């Protein structure tokens, strides 16, 4: 994987909420202020935990959307207890943050356009990469459940959107119905593209499809993987992903920590069949 010269230092910070507001029917934008200046690379994440009586045993991993000075931004969806608690909180509520953590998406390679694919809460790392690195020939595709679930204000106008089910869209914007990988396939097939690089984040089926999509073209593909995490910094071996060990047959894979060796992996490394 393309390595950056320097990976930003991981910090354990006290923080408090500055913004915690819905940006679509399913996505909430969270901005926090931390006690140190922070930096990150797109694809990296942070572990967040509440302070006070709602503190959990483990933090929760969230991809970093943006960061400037002491402010860090995330996008999240309520799926269970931790995110449910978070959604109920007002600006000022204290929390802790450990981050940035994990491996980033690779930096752009000159002459190699990027194809970005994101689904649902897979948006932040892909959008972060876009804001930091995108060039005119990079393309991005984003899928959501329905147009109401699309955070239109955050989506660059050049992005193509897809939805599982149709609904109203803002004036001048459209969403294609179908899978985001199908949309990319449709849009890119027949175009005479140079070898490109695919960056994907979203549900497992999307990532696997992204891998197949790239493989069929002989392109590089990097995916952001998710696993349940305990520590987020390689301390507990609780978040392993089965990957191909170099030069070994598939059955003899090894475990990689999603939090430290990932969350960004080459799609071809992953032993998809062994993923739950």
């Amino acid at each position, binding site marked *: 994987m393309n390595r950056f010269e320097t990976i930003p230092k991981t910090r354990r910070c006290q923080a408090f909420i500055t913004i915690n507001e819905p940006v679509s029917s399913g996505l909430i934008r969270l901005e926090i202020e931390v006690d140190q200046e922070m930096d990150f690379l797109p694809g990296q994440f942070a572990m967040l935990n509440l302070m006070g009586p709602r503190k959990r045993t483990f933090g929760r991993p969230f991809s970093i959307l943006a960061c400037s000075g002491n402010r860090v931004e995330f996008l999240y969806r309520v799926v269970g207890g931790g995110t449910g608690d978070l959604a109920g909180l007002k600006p000022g509520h204290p929390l802790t943050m450990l981050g940035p953590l994990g491996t980033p998406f690779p930096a752009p390679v000159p002459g190699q356009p990027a194809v970005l694919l994101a689904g649902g809460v897979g948006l932040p790392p892909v959008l972060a990469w876009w804001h930091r690195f995108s060039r005119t020939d990079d393309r991005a595709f984003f899928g959501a459940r329905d147009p109401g679930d699309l955070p239109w204000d955050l989506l660059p106008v050049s992005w193509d959107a897809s939805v599982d089910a149709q609904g109203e869209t803002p004036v001048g914007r459209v969403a294609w119905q179908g899978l985001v990988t199908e949309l990319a396939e449709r849009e890119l097939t027949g175009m005479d593209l140079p070898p490109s690089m695919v960056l994907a984040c979203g549900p497992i089926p999307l990532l696997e499809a992204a891998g197949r999509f790239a493989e069929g073209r002989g392109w590089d593909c990097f995916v952001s993987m998710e696993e349940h995490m305990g*520590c987020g910094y*390689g301390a*507990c*071996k*609780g978040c*392993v992903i089965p990957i191909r060990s170099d030069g070994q047959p598939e059955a003899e894979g090894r*475990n990689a920590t999603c939090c430290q060796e990932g969350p960004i992996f080459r799609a071809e490394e992953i032993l998809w069949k062994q993923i*739950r």
Partner: protein
Amino acid sequence: MNLPDWWKIDPCEPFVLGPREFPGRIWTASGCFAYGLTGHEISSRGFTSPYEGLGAVVSKTVTPMARTGNPMPRLCELPTGALNSIGLENVGFDEFLASVLPELERRGVPTVVSLAATRPDEFGVMVAALQMAGADYEHWHGVEINLSCPNVAEGGHDFGRDPETVARCVAAARKALPDRALLAKLTPNVADIASLAKAAAESGADAVSVINTVVGLEVDLTSGRPVLPRRYGGYSGPGVLPIALAKVDEIVQKAGVPVVGVGGIGGAQDALKFFALGAEAVQVGTAQMEDPFAAARIAADLSG
């Protein structure tokens, strides 16, 4: 922090345990801070590193051969702590000796090496190799033999629940370890932990580490099945604190064996409870996962 009147020691001062002087009494527990090498790049206000003030890092348990561990999910968060079923995933003893231990020495991490085996004599063999490889190491202070992994199925036999087996393992390790501290980590999943501690001490352990995780289970309500593929996991965190305190007290009162307290420590006050009962040192496990500075903060808080 307001420290109680009876608290007189500085946990960041050196203290002697067996044949060895340790730099301090606040340690990290095995399996919750990797091999002790993942924390170097992390910063936090008021600390130079997560290692500040630590008396030792007990490295993740290594076994004679590398292990891939248990299937995912391996962790299950609970309102009162967590269950884990990592299954002793580790790089294997040889790789540990070749790559990990030298790096710990190079970085000056005070280290206790945690070892597990399935037969008593294997402990002797591993310790002997360690003794050779680490003969000149300054920061390697001792060995903790892990006699208590409830989540590794070894044909169902209760390794480490029987005083005689404990004695044999400890004796084998002691023979090969003349000048470093030898600790035996005991399982709490027994009726009489004091007799295990006694057996360990009589066979040459300098102290016992108490407790390892408690056998626990969580059910996924949707499926009605255990969350962890192997059904049982090791329960740790705040919910085991009262159990750990009772086990430590039983050993101190009934067996008079030096104890390193571990189980449910989340902050300085929890650590103090173990010291109040007579523990020589304490280890921070689960709390170190959520906050790499958990042990360092406790060390800072308790040195007043």
